[in-house]
């Protein structure tokens, strides 16, 4: 831990510290919340094999969240601040994940639609960090991208199967896309200090440009499968700050063990 702390302390220029903090927190919270939501399928996924696959994917996301929270803890470099403290010891309104992830688990089509929308957006965001001037972040992103490649293959395979099967599978998928679509772009909610990040070479392009890139990237899939394209984001500025009732429920689930015994180790 000492090594990460000292490496990160020298890797992040003071002027970028706050902006990097916000970037890491948004990414970590995204991975943490989608990982936790997807883990709700353990035991009840459509078939046994998919149960194992979805649970394993969810674990991958929690692993990414852990690594990002650890970077953040190293950056904050304060006593008592570790990955668990950042992940669990906050009130629901303090989380900074995208509103796309605030719709509750829903049915299988909802889960696949959310995975597809998030994984495609995350891929564009990770690409924009692949040549980041912040070395520890760049190195972590390189590892995460190698795993996310598979996640996207899995989500796309399911998206195609649901979309191409007339009747209930397609109807449920279209309904899910209509519900999630208006919030899909919230992954690209502008960050405080974003201009500094781009100027300092930490992030390749502003979020607005990344969102345009993402929309261009997913359009062929939506056209090919005849699905409703996500419309422009409603209330884009608050895309990461206002979380509804489904998230409050999820928060009470994932903090329950921590609240019972804050010093438990496992």
């Amino acid at each position, binding site marked *: 831990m000492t090594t990460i702390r000292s490496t990160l302390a020298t890797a992040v220029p003071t002027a970028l510290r706050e902006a990097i903090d916000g970037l890491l927190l948004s990414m970590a919270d995204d991975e943490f919340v989608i990982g936790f939501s997807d883990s709700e399928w353990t035991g*009840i*996924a*459509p*078939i*046994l*094999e*998919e149960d*194992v*696959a979805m649970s*394993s994917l969810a674990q991958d996301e929690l692993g990414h969240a852990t690594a990002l929270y650890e970077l953040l803890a190293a950056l904050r470099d304060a006593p008592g601040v570790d990955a668990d403290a950042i992940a669990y010891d906050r009130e629901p309104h303090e989380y900074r994940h995208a509103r796309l992830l605030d*719709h*509750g688990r*829903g*049915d*299988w*089509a*909802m889960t696949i639609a959310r995975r597809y929308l998030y994984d495609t957006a995350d891929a564009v965001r990770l690409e924009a960090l692949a040549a980041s001037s912040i070395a520890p972040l760049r190195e972590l992103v390189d590892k995460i991208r190698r795993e996310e490649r*598979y996640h996207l*293959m*899995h989500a796309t*395979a399911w998206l195609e*199967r649901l979309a191409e*099967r007339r009747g*209930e*599978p397609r109807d*449920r998928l279209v*309904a*899910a896309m209509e*519900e999630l679509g208006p919030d899909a772009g919230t992954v690209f909610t502008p960050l405080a200090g974003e201009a500094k990040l781009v100027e300092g070479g930490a992030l390749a392009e502003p979020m607005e440009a990344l969102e345009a890139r993402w929309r261009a990237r997913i359009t062929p899939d939506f056209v090919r499968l005849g699905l409703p394209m996500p419309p422009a984001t409603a209330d884009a500025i608050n895309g990461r700050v206002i979380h509804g009732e*489904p998230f409050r429920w999820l928060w009470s689930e994932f903090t329950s063990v921590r609240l019972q015994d804050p010093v438990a180790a496992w």
Partner: protein
Amino acid sequence: MTDSAPLDRETTARQGPPLEPWEVFRQEKEGDPMRHGGSVMAPDAVLAVHYARELYGRRQESVRLWVVRRADVHDLSDPDLLQPPLDRSFKKPGGYVMRDKLAAARKQSGQQKPRARAT
């Protein structure tokens, strides 16, 4: 939030495309033979490969997987063809001693007997 309850496993399996078994072969490290690992149920090759990865590779225990539709495997288990009742011991190499021939060949070529591999 979508209110409809998730379909239970049996209902989903009934409504979806039929599942069929796929056999999974795995290689533990480069150079090892492919060994049968087990099987997965899947509706098509793409998902079969996904599931093989999760069930036989998610803990980094494989460097390569082969996934084969069980229906594509040609089975031979006929005892008349594999375990014929007559004596076949003359087809085994047991009566053929290599040791003396190898020693003679080494002597002729001036080579030493290789040492036992340290494994």
